[in-house]
């Protein structure tokens, strides 16, 4: 019962660059990424199966999740 999370861009400097497998139905994306968000000093939008979701979303079996950082540099 697993879900893959792929970190994009900036976040790859703070977490696994390869897709990362987490258990489904347990913790929300916000909980899973809390530590990394702090380390990266950057917010993000979870994109689940191509759709934007909130951080409160709890991943379900088979989900493909991409983490798009919210940070930009002018």
């Amino acid at each position, binding site marked *: 019962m697993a879900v893959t999370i*792929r*970190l*994009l*861009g*900036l*976040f*790859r*400097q703070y977490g696994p660059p390869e897709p990362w497998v987490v258990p489904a139905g347990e913790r929300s994306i916000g909980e899973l990424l809390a530590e990394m*968000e702090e380390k990266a*000093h*950057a*917010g993000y*939008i979870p*994109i689940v199966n*191509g*759709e*934007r979701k909130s951080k409160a979303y709890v991943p379900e079996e088979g989900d493909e999740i*991409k*983490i*798009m*950082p*919210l*940070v*930009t*540099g*002018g």
Partner: protein
Amino acid sequence: MYGYWGKLLRVNLTSRACRIDDIPEETFDLLLGGSALGAKILLEETPAKVDPLSPENKLIFAVGPFQGVKFPGNGKWSVITKGPLTGTFLESAGTGHWAPYFKQCGIDAVVFEGRADSPVYVFIKDGGAEIRDAAFLWGKDTIETGELIKEDLGDRRINALNIGPAGERMHPIACISCDGHSFAGRGGAGAVMGSKNLKAVAAWGTMEVPVHDPEKAAEFAKETFRLLSGQGEKFRAHGTPRVIVPLEGIGDTPIKYWRGDENKRGAALLGAPRYTEYLNVKPLPCINCPIGCHRHIRFEYPDGTVLEGNGPEYETIGMMGSNLLVEDLGAVAKANDMANRLGIDTISCGAWIGFLMECWEYGWITPRDTGGLSLKWGDPDVLLALVEQIGTMTGMGGWFREGIRGAARHIGGEAEKITVEVKNMDYPAHDPRAVYALGVNYAVGTRGACHERGNPQTSALGGYFPELGQDGPYDRQTPEFAAKTAVIHQDVSVLMNCMTICQFMMGGGGLTLTEIRTAYRYLTGKDVPVEELVKFGERAWQLQRIINVRDGLDRKDDTLPLKMTVPAMVGPRAGKTPTPHDRILDDYYELRGWDRNGIPTRERLESLGLGRFAAFLP
């Protein structure tokens, strides 16, 4: 019509006459407003090859439909003209507190024509404008000017777009300032104001913009504000200086005028989180902004002097810090403040200093040329001295009257080979060897090398557009993806400049195209699917290209500087160059519907509803 007034204010500075013309609804249906509206006016009303500093050039300020409610990021405005730095089309955009009040005057755009016989400023108010004497403002810096206009009009709420002493002197990189912390920075729009003896444009309107569904529009704006405020919390904390370290980490930030490979130490010293603490930062939001990426700083120097005000952004830190190997953040903050007050673009200013330092290193300029100054890399005193000289066009600053190409001609020899520019506009602080799409994006930039139209560097940070069918950012160092990435980012970022919404609402706050579609529907009553929305961006881009092609620009002008063909020896972009440039350019032209020489085809223009503008092509 909803979301717009359908009104264009014309101010003839020669005759000192003001008039209001109608703008038909079809124009907004085709072009939205802002950047595209300005391009249309410029194309139709100025002759080919008009001298940017002549009275015949026009200076247009325009906004879009989003100033009708308190929509997040609607402090944005666009200024459109022929640019003195490049001689091409120029659109520059700023934020601040001006745009919504301008719209509430009952107009969507203002065109300045002619030239006043003495310094003036224009006060736009409900349904009209007043031309006022500006002799008392001439010579004042951008901050003083804003304050003096508030006093002159007896109302501290009134904001004025204005120029500093550089604009008055028609400096080729003079910018237009708003509130002292937001700038239409690039390409010299401030010089066009100076050429017209126009010191400032104040605006204060109280009229309610007609909105299709005012209740829903206001409610949706409020909801979106709350959403973006939450999503943008981290970006608010550190602003754009946050990306100095990660962008250096992928080789994107300029080092030693594009010759250095790595600068980890410099990035850590200049970027956030250190920046935030060292300069005592507070976020400084523009009007209706849920993020506040601008930085208010308070810094005490060792000699006890205090600098309080607007702090440097990513671009300034990149060009005046890392680019010059300057690691002293206090000096970069000071240089930023000097440039802002004089009213010059910090990007080109930093590029020019880097160019001079390199010429010094090679011995092409000597103490006799520099007045005894040793132009050593990393020297904060040299940075400050050269900002002063460039800003006032004195000493070595005088070499740049025609931009970097002019300075290279002045120095002679090989100097022209080391410049990093397109169409005479210096590269901003993002390296195409790290993100290949930047090479072609800069090359075809309608105002020269520009990172805001589009901004493919955001794809390297992880940004992409799922609503446009992307399933992730395209690989940043694969030549086959370069043109595609540039096109998608150009269309979206130019769309934002037609809507006149701050682009950081997307990249920093997570605003989606779907949310823009919904808000646009409430504002105007028109429902436009997202794939159609981005076509507004493309239309604006094609019109801008037509203006340049009419003046004789084509493929030969869409260049990649020599340095970009030289890979790094070590570090994250070792062995990488955005080449072959010609092939990437071919891909780009094909995606844009241009012929092999970079000329828009009639078929493509017709498919976008722009067929009648083909008549302007040679």
